[in-house]
């Protein structure tokens, strides 16, 4: 392998891991909701879009850095998610209907409403937050003068990645160490048993939907400095989150993190060595492969190891 080839490979891997970190944060919210409610929230990308508009408004009105708007947009999305669960999904759960998964259909409708509301309010123009550090990067040759290869690490992408990692760690701590987190996990494992053990399952559902929305809201704030924004952006990311959820094993947060990174790296490798036009194809190859060969997702691999089977 020549140094040029090595450079391309390493740069591709760096890009893949950074992209994967962001994907993981987008996917983890959907996985959480999936685990507790057993439904796929198909308005997931649209919720992210809402958070991005909040970040955009804060940036254009108050010049607030998009990374700082995480602290405003994520809590707002948390409240929005709780409201959606409480006033829209919970009532639908209680209704007998012909379709078993009518809550899923509700989320589709919700996504459409959000996208169209955004179109009415902000028009379908492309918006972005042109931050000063958008193209800043660290270069290997700046640190190691005689380096035979040149690698670069994007400043905003690295910051987004690090914040995503921190948020994920906090979530892990919350789920494993706190009472509330344990109750959520109990609800996810067996809602009836949890109910018998005195867990307020309805409340856990409301909190989980809020948490999932808040997480994807945070992901939106991390995405906007490196991407851009328009009302119909949601669908694309709902799809990515969906693939990650399936790949990670429905409802497993650790699985979603690994799934996100695997997807990011796989997409980058496809783009480099097969062609960038094939990246969406690669995404669905992974999706179908996961369904056929690994129906339990990455979570089932982890479990197998844990129980020594």
């Amino acid at each position, binding site marked *: 392998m020549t140094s040029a*080839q090595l450079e*391309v490979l390493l740069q591709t891997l760096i890009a893949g891991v950074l992209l994967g970190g962001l994907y993981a944060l987008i996917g983890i919210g959907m996985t959480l909701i999936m685990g507790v409610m057993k439904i796929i929230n198909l308005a997931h990308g649209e919720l992210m879009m809402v958070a991005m508009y909040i970040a955009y408004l804060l940036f254009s009105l108050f010049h607030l850095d998009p990374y700082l708007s995480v602290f405003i947009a994520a809590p707002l999305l948390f409240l929005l998610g709780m409201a959606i669960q409480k006033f829209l999904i919970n009532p639908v759960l209680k209704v007998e209907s012909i379709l078993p998964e009518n809550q899923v259909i509700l989320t589709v409708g919700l996504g459409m409403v959000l996208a169209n509301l955004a179109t009415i309010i902000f028009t379908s123009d*492309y918006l*972005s937050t*042109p931050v000063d550090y958008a193209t800043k990067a660290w270069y290997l040759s700046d640190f190691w003068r005689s380096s035979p290869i040149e690698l*670069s690490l994007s400043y905003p992408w690295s910051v987004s990645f690090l914040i995503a990692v921190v948020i994920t760690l906090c979530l892990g701590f919350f789920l494993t160490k706190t009472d509330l987190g344990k109750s959520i996990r109990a609800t996810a494992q067996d809602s009836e048993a949890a109910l018998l053990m005195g867990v307020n399952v309805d409340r856990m559902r409301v909190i989980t939907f809020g948490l999932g929305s808040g997480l994807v809201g945070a992901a939106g704030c991390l995405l906007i400095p490196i991407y851009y924004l328009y009302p119909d952006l949601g669908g694309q990311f709902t799809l990515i989150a969906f693939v990650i959820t399936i790949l990670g094993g429905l409802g497993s947060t650790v699985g979603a993190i690994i799934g996100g990174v695997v997807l990011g790296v796989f997409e980058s490798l496809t783009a*480099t060595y097969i062609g*960038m036009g094939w990246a969406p194809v690669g995404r669905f190859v992974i999706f179908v492969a996961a369904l056929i060969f690994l129906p339990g997702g990455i979570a089932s691999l982890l479990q197998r190891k844990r129980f020594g089977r």
Partner: protein
Amino acid sequence: MRRVLLVMTAVFVISLFAAGAFAEDFKLSIPLPLTGKQAKFGEMMKRSYEMAAEEINAKGGIKKKKIVLYFEDSGAKPETARAIVEKLIDVNKQPVIVGEYTSACAKAVAAVAEERKTPYLIVASADDDITRQHYKYVFRQNAVNAHYGDGVVDFLRRVVKPKTIAILYESSAFGTSGAEAMVKDAEKLGTRVLMKERYEAGSVDFRPLLSKVKAARPDVVYMVSYVMDASLLMKQIKELRVDAKLFAGGAAGFAIPEFIANAKDAAEYVISATLWTPQVKFPGAREFAEKYKKHYGDYPSYHGASAYSALYVLKNALDRAKTWTPDKIRDALKATNMKTVFGPIKFEDREGYQNQNFMDTLVIQVQKGAFETIWPAQYASKKYIYPIPSWRERR
């Protein structure tokens, strides 16, 4: 009582005729998209038509007739555009049609106009096929897609003389046709196409693709992208320090103000094809652009300039036409040879096109955060900057 009524009616009718003889208006209905995705361009064209009509009327109208404009919203839907034009020709008896924006609509309108033997002047629709169907009554004043990149190709041939080129394009009809045209042009230039890579519009991360470009070391990187992909590409090119002798864009995303606003300093020195700029040295271009900006707060793109000029082309033809029947107007349009804000306009039959105006397409370059016209030299507002500094040299 009845007699009085009769007299009154007679007087009324006579006065109507009399009034008509003195100040008959020339009513012109223009179909264009005022709602939907293309509304932005429709709006710009509407304003430009209105500005032109106002000016023409202030100078005495066409053969002393006042132009009165009406606008019909087609919503960029071919079937609506078709219905509008059928009504204009069959019911309103309008002897000439001007307007529309998208190629799909213009195609539909052109078919109706040809069938009804009514001249139709196309203003901003670029699909090659429209003026290749041996239509007698369809005229087009803007350049066709196939010639869109002429200016850039000429610039490459005379100045850059590239040995290799990498072509990146979005996987749409627009992107694919743009890339194909460049492959053909590269062949003529004797430039080797190192890579021709497709990407999905709306992608987040172009780095894998760009590191491949970096390793291939092409002389020129040519990109056909829409709005935001263009700025994302340049931003990531800057970040990866992909160096080439020149970065060129195939119009669209690279030729609009949003490109500079988003890509910021990464946009510097990038060139792009375009049909018209506010600085171009056609008589009246500057004045038109400034007047438009004064009224509406922003510079118009070529769409506006073309629409504005279209009314002058029409006035010119109507002034020369003996009677205003569709056939006489058609003959007058065919004989058009005039200078407008949009450049010289002459409808020719060549290269398999009929009634097509062939124009010089321009090249713009981002210099100090603004678009400057750099090619062809006679239209340039600033001299081109070439060779460009490498990313490392830029601060």
